[in-house]
């Protein structure tokens, strides 16, 4: 299988699907002028080389601290393993984003445990909430701990190495029968946030639930995600990083690359392959091959952005 023939018009659907299959084993994606090209399989040394200049940041997601069901009775242990992998990286990343479901049930002790473990990475962490982070009776713990300087339910933006990062919240005020939801206030804020920004500014958007429709039968999508993307369509390089579905998926549409990260807690089934999207129990030996982290590399000169998914094992 070759990935070298992605032409300037972008990858065909078939090729994207092929690459999705390979993503878990270390395909290095690059983004050049908004069109992703795959450089093929890389080893850790090659990846380290790629990260030697420019901006490298990490994504972890869906740590579900407090989860103890058969799909992974020790979700806290696998989060520790993920953080140990981060600590062992040859080049220290600039920072980390966490795309939500930090806790399983929004208990103070779960947030405490998550903070204790994640802080061992010694990286700044930019969080967005998942639906599991808003379950406390007064819906205040997430905002108290992670919401400083954010708007609404916790959205915000920041800049790093010439890249504009936008953290969105699509897990509140969900409507019966619907999908994830951004809401009018947040969309208005987004438009203002992007106003006057150079169209050549690389944009990274991160949110918990996929902004594109992955599988509506399981609620895997965002009702008004298309409106957010409409606001972003003038930009030459847009990367959308999500979690929620506990598996790697990638899609390319025009100048936008969509990518979902693995969970550090438990896998979920591929769309439609199980009666429900609930935690997927696999044999113990296989679990760590389905959990992991993502590393994202941006090179200013080349306008390149690479996403490397690394499983905890296998």
């Amino acid at each position, binding site marked *: 299988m070759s990935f070298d023939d992605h032409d300037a018009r972008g990858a065909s659907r078939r090729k994207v699907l092929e690459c999705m299959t390979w993503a878990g084993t270390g395909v290095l994606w690059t983004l050049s002028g908004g069109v992703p090209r795959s450089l093929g399989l890389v080893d850790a040394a090659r990846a380290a080389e790629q990260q030697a200049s420019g901006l490298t940041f990490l994504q972890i997601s869906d740590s579900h601290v407090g989860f103890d069901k058969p799909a992974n009775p020790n979700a806290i242990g696998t989060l520790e393993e993920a953080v140990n992998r981060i600590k062992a990286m040859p080049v220290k990343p600039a920072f980390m984003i966490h795309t939500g479901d930090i806790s399983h*049930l929004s208990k103070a002790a779960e947030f405490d445990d998550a903070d204790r473990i994640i802080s061992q990475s010694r990286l700044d962490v930019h969080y967005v909430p998942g639906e599991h982070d808003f379950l406390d009776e007064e819906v205040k713990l997430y905002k108290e701990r992670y919401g400083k300087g954010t708007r609404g339910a916790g959205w915000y933006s920041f800049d790093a190495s010439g890249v504009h990062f936008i953290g969105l919240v699509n897990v509140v005020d969900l409507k019966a029968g619907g999908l994830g939801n951004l809401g009018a206030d947040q969309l208005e804020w987004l438009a203002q946030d992007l106003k006057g920004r150079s169209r050549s500014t690389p944009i990274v958007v991160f949110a918990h639930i996929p902004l594109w429709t992955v599988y509506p039968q399981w609620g895997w999508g965002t009702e008004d995600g298309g409106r957010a993307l409409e606001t972003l369509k003038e930009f030459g390089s847009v990367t959308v990083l999500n979690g929620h579905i506990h598996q790697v998926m990638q899609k390319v549409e025009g100048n936008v690359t969509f990518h979902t990260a693995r969970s550090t807690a438990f896998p979920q089934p591929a769309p439609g392959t199980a009666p429900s999207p*609930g*935690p997927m129990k696999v044999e113990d030996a296989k679990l760590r091959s389905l959990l992991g982290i993502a590393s994202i590399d941006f090179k200013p000169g080349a306008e390149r952005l690479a996403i490397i998914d690394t499983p905890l094992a296998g």
Partner: protein
Amino acid sequence: MTGFVSFDRSIGWALAAALLGFAATPLRAETIKVTIDNFTFTPAEVTVKAGDTVTWTNHDDIPHTVVSAGKYRSKTLDTDDSFSFTFAASGDYKYFCSLHPHMTGLVKVE
């Protein structure tokens, strides 16, 4: 044999308690069960009488909620947690899980 004696005695107490409770509530009030399995309310639609209680029990490994906008709202139901609501007035009560809004159900109260 002592075990059997105390068993009978506890049954007696349970019966007495049940009879007392029975006398205090309308004769026809019932409790209807709805289960949550595989991100689905089952049965998705139930028909009850005014005064009846519906009890939802979550059997998934993922928490769910039961929310009927403006009418009732459960706490987050972790695995094997239950929520009950007694319907005093007739009408159609649509509800959903506020965490997984594709999960919907209906209680028809006659």
